[in-house]
């Protein structure tokens, strides 16, 4: 019922250029390019200290907390909402979990400090609290029709101070030793397991590429040429294994190793070395990223989230319960705030009042730099994570170069605005 479009873009026209053949999202490529430029510039400015295994290791563990929340913020922004309370929610979850492991469980449930169940119970309870608060936000927004901006602005004040009341304003620590393993440097996979993980991940991505191709062929859809497929597979698995190799090159300092041997009642053999490998917190981020990507692209929930962002009325007329969807989106955000709270407090090794302060801005900035459109309907999980990584690189790089803190913030703020401007120009150019 429409005019014929002989030269339509689409499956049937021959691919024009290399990028199109590889079917790589040019936007993603631009972001990776920007990230590489940032890294190289700082590497020059710091005389090569920026791109050392040690600094890359630190950069990744510093990024995890914001990146985890940024993946949830993608859903929130895609559905045309906003969440200004994530930093405060993180603080409430962190306070609750700190109290759970140091006070509630030992005192009220008779579970001794040091019991191996403590971290698991704590994390489950923390996620429960996050989900509950998220549901409450979603209910206020979806069912009562209060704009998310207002609900979460109120939430920012409320939850920051609920956290204060939970702990009486005190710093809570030290936290459970098992719990601390999710903080970064205190819990890593070690060299061998990191390689195992890297190989499995590379194999899995190759399998995913292959099965996607097979699925397309089975439906007679056009596929990209075999060489493009092979090149993509090589790039992806190369990146994964390269990342593992870098983290496996960061060796534990001798005094750390000596302490570890001492704790086991042994003495360290002469010349013994050991690398950190992949931190558990990074593993957690990878798991969150995979799950959230699957939810976004492969499930009905994800489909409805994007549809609701594109046209809420149409989505409702298609039989989707938008109010319920809003609750789900905020509940996911709450769960991710709790997971971030685990990582953030474990990295500090204690809970403080100001944990997560200003995180809402970092998280929103990460999502937006990562290509999430505030108008709704557009955004990717990997983009938000890359956005978080770019922000963290800027911040750490400037700190290493010795830029004053106020000036760091000026740069980060400017970058946010410029990134959005570039995105707007880019989208206009490709007519999106």
């Amino acid at each position, binding site marked *: 019922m429409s005019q014929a479009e002989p030269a*339509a873009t689409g499956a049937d026209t021959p691919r024009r250029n290399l990028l199109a053949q590889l079917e790589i999202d040019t936007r993603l490529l631009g972001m990776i390019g920007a990230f590489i430029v940032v890294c190289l510039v700082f590497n020059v400015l710091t005389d090569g200290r920026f791109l050392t295994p040690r600094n890359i290791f630190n950069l990744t563990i510093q990024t995890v907390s914001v990146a985890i929340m940024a993946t949830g913020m993608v859903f929130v922004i895609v559905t045309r909402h906003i969440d200004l309370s994530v930093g405060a929610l993180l603080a409430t979850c962190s306070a609750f979990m700190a109290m759970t492991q140091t006070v509630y469980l030992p005192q009220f449930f008779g579970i001794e400090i040091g019991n191996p169940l403590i971290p698991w119970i704590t994390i489950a309870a923390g996620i429960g609290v996050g989900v509950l608060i998220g549901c409450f936000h979603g209910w206020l927004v979806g069912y009562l029709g209060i704009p998310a901006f207002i609900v979460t602005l109120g939430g920012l004040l409320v939850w920051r101070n609920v956290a204060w009341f939970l702990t009486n304003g005190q710093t809570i620590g030290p936290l459970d030793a098992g719990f601390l393993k999710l903080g970064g440097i205190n819990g890593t996979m070690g060299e061998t397991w990191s390689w195992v993980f890297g190989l499995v991940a590379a194999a899995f991505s190759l399998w995913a590429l292959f099965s996607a191709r097979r699925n397309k062929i089975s439906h*007679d859809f056009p596929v990209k040429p075999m060489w493009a497929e092979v090149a993509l597979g090589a790039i992806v698995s190369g990146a994964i294994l390269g990342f593992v190799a870098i983290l496996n090159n960061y060796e534990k300092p001798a005094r750390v190793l000596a302490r570890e041997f001492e704790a086991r009642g042994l003495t360290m053999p002469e010349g013994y070395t050991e690398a950190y490998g992949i931190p558990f917190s990074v593993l957690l981020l990878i798991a969150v990223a995979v799950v959230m990507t699957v939810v976004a692209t492969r499930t009905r929930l994800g*489909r409805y989230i994007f549809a609701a962002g*594109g046209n809420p009325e149409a*989505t409702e007329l298609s039989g989707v319960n938008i109010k319920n969807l809003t609750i789900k989106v905020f509940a996911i955000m709450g769960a991710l705030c709790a997971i971030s709270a685990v990582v953030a407090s474990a990295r500090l090794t204690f809970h403080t009042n100001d944990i997560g302060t200003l995180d809402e801005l970092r998280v929103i900035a990460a999502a937006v730099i990562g290509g999430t459109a505030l108008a709704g309907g*557009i955004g990717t999980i990997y983009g938000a994570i890359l956005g978080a990584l770019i922000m963290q690189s800027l911040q750490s790089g400037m700190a290493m170069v010795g830029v004053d803190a106020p000036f760091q913030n000026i740069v980060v703020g400017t970058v946010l605005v410029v990134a959005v401007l570039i995105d707007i120009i880019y989208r206009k150019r490709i007519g999106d």
Partner: protein
Amino acid sequence: MVDRSGTPLVELRDISISFGGIKAVDSVSVDLYPGEVVGLLGHNGAGKSTLIKCLSGAYQKDSGEVLINGKPVEINNPRDARDHNIETIYQTLALADNLDAASNLFLGREIVTPLGFVNDAKMEAETRKIMGRLNPNFRKFEAPVSALSGGQRQSVAISRAVYFNARILIMDEPTAALGVQETKMVADLIEELRKDGIGIFLIDHDIHSVMQLCDRASVMKNGQLVGTVNVDEVTEDDLLSMIILGKAPEKAA
């Protein structure tokens, strides 16, 4: 000729709905038999879209009754309407611009794999099939529907309504954005669907095509029903005067 001796497929009885004190639909009753096309006519703002939205679940009526196959039913939301095999092509088309044709066609009713994941490849294949029938020129399967022309978007909305085997089809100005050839294809489609025993409510401002496609026509004015006529028994001028003057001809059906 349509057999109107049995129970009607749909009966809307004394439907009223108002927005902020203004009666958009005021005690309107219409019915629809299997294999019948009933046209809804009236000036802009007469209440046609509002009336059918009470049937499609987009609005909740203030009072009145909806009967399907003679049984009273409650339609509180679009899901209820779908459960009664009511499909609607809205005047506004109701598409999510950021999604592609297949995602829109299956929105709310995705095909899933045994593991519960959406099966995009299968949905695209099905979309290609139905589009091949309804609009063989359609090529833009990968692009978001925001990249489609008005007519292409319309064909996505139409194929969505047709794909799921509707028993009752509501078409609110389905040809508004279509070219001559495409309008003809919709007319053929309506003819084909009616032969399958589907009942169709057709809202259209073009009296000529209503005369051609419909068995009966109901005319509304200012939220009220002027009358329902067999199109065979009236002239275009009769319909025109019903729409403009709000006067039913002497021999109303």
